[in-house]
């Protein structure tokens, strides 16, 4: 229990060296990797998200905590894969066509991974066809779309329209975010949700998976 608390604290405090060594130590001592993930690592990133939403943490703290989470995940991921443990969900993540911005997208990806999701990062400047292909071929539960520019957010609607046209809209939830995006815009284009922050995206993804 002490080890779990120490691992939790290491991630919350952003100490990636400690997160790695504590995870390795716990595994050597016979800990179940899924238990480490579910009872220390994901709760730690939830706490990071909570502090971020409360204005106690800012982007640097998110980033170093995520780095600590990744250090621990690098230790347990092969073990989880071998045990066929399922992630919280699989998310295809992309910045829409015409938009090369990836800072927000990457933060969302990092936080989703920290929240136990598997992330398929499709990159930037991604057109509807590539997203549809990911939905068809990669068994994703959620499509998460990002845009920074007011002139490119229309690409989100084009993507949703393409998902409908290809008959796969009902297979996935579509969530959107980015500086010019609002809840109203999400409603207008028929997205399933909008998150203002990276940690908010995790909460949203979980609620959609719970309702799926």
């Amino acid at each position, binding site marked *: 229990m002490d080890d779990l608390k120490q691992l939790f604290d290491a991630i919350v405090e*952003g100490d990636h060296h400690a997160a790695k060594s504590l995870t390795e130590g716990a595994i050597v001592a016979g800990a179940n990797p899924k238990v480490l993930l579910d009872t220390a690592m994901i709760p730690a990133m939830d706490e990071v998200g909570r502090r971020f939403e409360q*204005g106690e*943490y*800012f*982007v*640097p*703290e*998110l*980033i*170093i905590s995520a*780095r600590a989470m990744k250090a621990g995940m690098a230790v347990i991921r092969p073990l989880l894969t071998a045990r066929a443990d399922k992630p919280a969900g699989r998310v295809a993540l992309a910045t*829409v*066509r*015409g*938009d*090369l*911005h*990836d*800072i*927000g997208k*990457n933060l969302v990806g990092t936080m989703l991974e920290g929240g136990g999701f598997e992330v398929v990062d499709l990159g*930037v*400047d991604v*057109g509807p066809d590539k997203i549809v292909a990911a939905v068809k071929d990669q068994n994703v539960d959620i499509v998460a779309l990002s845009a*920074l*520019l*007011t*002139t*490119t957010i*229309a*690409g989100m609607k*084009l993507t949703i329209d393409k998902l409908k046209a290809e008959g796969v809209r009902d297979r996935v939830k579509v969530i959107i975010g980015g*500086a*010019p*995006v*609002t809840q109203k815009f999400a409603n207008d284009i028929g997205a399933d949700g909008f998150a*203002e*922050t990276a940690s908010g995206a995790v909460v949203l993804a979980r609620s959609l998976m719970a309702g799926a």
Partner: protein
Amino acid sequence: MNARERFAATMHYQPRDRSPIMDFGFWDETLVIWQEQGYPAGSDPDSFFGMDPQWFECGGIVGLWPAFPDLVLKDQGETEVAQQSDGVIVQRGKFLGTIPRHIDHTLKDRDSWNKYFKPRLRDDDPLRFPSESAWTMLVDEWTRPTREYPLFIRAGSLYGVARNWFGLERISEVIYDDRVLFEEIVETLADVVIASLERTLAAGVRPEAASMWEDMCYNAGPLISPKLFKQVLVPHYRRITDLLCKYGVDIVFVDCDGKIDALAPLWLDAGVNTMFPIEVGTWHADPIEFRRKYGKDMRLIGGVDKHLLAGPLEGITREIERLAPLVEEGGYIPTPDHRVPPDVPLSHYIFYLNEAKRVWGRGLDNCGPTGHVDPSAVKPTTKRFSWES
């Protein structure tokens, strides 16, 4: 009253004939698209639209010197991979004006700082200024009593440029992994700015304002904590503003997009007293609210939602009239809250300017005439962006 006098009077709450009528600028695509709507190709926007001239900058080079060579590393059709003058490797559009995507950074750690950046940030490098003869000519122009335009002195950046050099992720790590390095970078940047200010101001130049650039906020707030900002940045802002104050430069503005609420009072405490461009955004920033909260100590430039200009004309008039009392009070110059995007029709922009001149300009005819568009010259609209295909 000329533009210089009008700017100074406005920022000091003194009587003036009218508010300055200015803009922030335009996306490259906007002026191209507007040509199809009657805007004469090659025209100077300030002249065509009859606006007051924007400020001009003075002082030495406060960034990297010498800059890294701007090199195209790989042609990718509509985009290219290039090394920028700040050492950042980017993927950028050749034709669209979008912000380039960072792929790699020359600045990664203390070694790369010492090897590539510190030598380019010597505050005693004479090449930060032009030759003596050219410098004398510039100083003569900047100190000319009959100068009609506002002059801003470059006061650099303490976080924004370092964030660009490192990338957001790496600088965020450096803040925790090597706080001493982060502090050294901030101090070095401030030293370069101070050396430039000292030489320029000691030469007798008296600009109407000093200008800083940071862009360190996004739609949810600042990119670093206010606590860190206060501990590391504020002391160096204070060094800069104290020097400016010694020479009588009492208007210091910071260009910072995004939601600045958490940093605005800290900047104000540090002597940075003019917020620009008050991006309205999805967080609904409002210059009237900033004035209510911080009083006349805080000056404001911007605050007109650029997206409003694409909407109904009644909404444009309503917003101009809503802001009118603040404009009249002074210490505020209204402009669109960033460059005008291409979804704003030219006719709307002209309507906005005419309304601005009527209300904020008090209808005086010393605003230049707004350019006339011949309806017969308007071409059918063509496709604008690649995502429409």
